[in-house]
């Protein structure tokens, strides 16, 4: 089982913990009990590098509770280099779109009270 704690520990090392189907090899980011591709129940953990490029993002100026002190910040979606998967997370100190053109290289650097942390490379 992919737990939040295991995922967070890997994120702190710059890695992404995924689940790989033992039958067809399909990668899953989230906790699934059956393979989305083939329906198989068996998985093995696969740790991949947390590097990639930014697919899209927003800069939040009206935040949910707990994020007031970080405004403005970005929530980003990143393509991972080493798989077909994408991952999203929190990116600090992005004030305008000029700070983050689409395609910017980025990497996972941690996990804390702000969630999965992604930084520019």
């Amino acid at each position, binding site marked *: 089982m992919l737990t939040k704690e295991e995922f967070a520990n890997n994120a702190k090392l710059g890695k992404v913990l995924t689940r790989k189907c033992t039958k067809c090899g399909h990668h899953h980011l989230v906790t699934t009990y059956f393979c989305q591709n083939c329906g198989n129940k068996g998985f093995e953990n696969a740790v991949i590098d947390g590097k990639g490029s930014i697919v*899209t993002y927003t800069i939040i100026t009206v935040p949910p*509770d707990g994020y007031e002190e970080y405004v403005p910040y970005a929530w980003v979606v990143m393509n991972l280099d080493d798989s077909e998967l994408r991952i999203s997370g929190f990116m600090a100190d992005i004030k305008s*779109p000029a700070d983050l053109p689409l395609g910017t290289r980025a990497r996972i650097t941690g996990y804390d009270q702000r969630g999965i942390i992604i930084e520019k490379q």
Partner: protein
Amino acid sequence: MEKVCLIGAGSTKYGKLEDSITDIALQASVDAIESAGIGPKEIQAGYISNVFGIADKQVHLGPVIMSNLGIPEVPSLSIESACGSGSVSFREAYANVAAGFYDVVLATGVEKVTHTGTEWTTTYFSYCSDFFYEGGAGASFPGLFASMARAYLAEFKATEEDLAMVAVKNHDNGLLNPKAHLRKKITIDDVMKSAVVASPLKLYDCCPFSDGGSAVILCSEKFAKAHTKNYVEVIGSGRGGSPAALQGRDHITTIPSTRIAAQAAYKMAGISPKDVDFAEVHDCFTIAELVDTEDLGFFEKGKAVEAVREGRTKLNGDISINPSGGLKSKGHPIGATGIGQVAEVFDQLTGKAGDRTVKDAKIGLTHNFGATGASCAVHIFKSV
């Protein structure tokens, strides 16, 4: 399966309402019952959609509503599917009448949140996302749709002014709707100058947080025919799902659940998108209307923006999109919205839509989803 018909619809005004969640739901329900010209004792089941009853200290709304309608013995189901609760609930009501379990049912949707303030609603609405990856990493709902918008603008060479045109159109329609929340004419300039909520979306790209209730009466064709000449037939019903998180989707600018639900509904109805005269679609943010109208098959991918620029989606354009004003102007009481769309279609197809009537309309479609489209229902209606 039995043919299913609509014989009545009702809504409160959408906006900031003083009444309790129960009273709002009851006002809409009574309105629908009276519109149908039936008595409460003819109702055999209730389907009640709501998300944040907890904000007004009343969950398990079904039995409370049925009791206050004087029919406490009638079974009810309280349904939550985020912003798509209303359409998902309507589907359950439809399916139970189609299956022959009941002849007449009430579907009521309600929401009451404006008293909680923007921070509460922003925070609690974010719980409708895939929280570990989205809300729990600082994404608000405007932020999730803003991420879709940035990808769309880049992929299809559209501009923020193009998004603004959707808001301007829906406000024009909402001006003609006495029950709309934001009845105010706006310009592209107003949208562009409004405060940024989540770049690239600005305040006027976003629907409001609204209170409100809507209700409809569904029944078997046999009951409808015996009862009235002014009814509407439900000819298509489809549902679909999407990966809960945006990161899990192949294309950020496509909502899979819309496509799946629409295909199922078109197939059941035996029609194609070009046969639809008007549609009430889920425009929680301006970008959503562009994505929706493409995923529903009205326009090719990336082409909705041209249609908006050319005015083809205006009231009585090629296809009238959101004649009610949509979520953007009519308002978005999230548990009620999907039912409110059906009420709008009922009014349009029975000659009760007043100044916002879509001329010569025979076929209307409703499209309503939960969160960023993780859950979706599409329904198609035909006048008789």
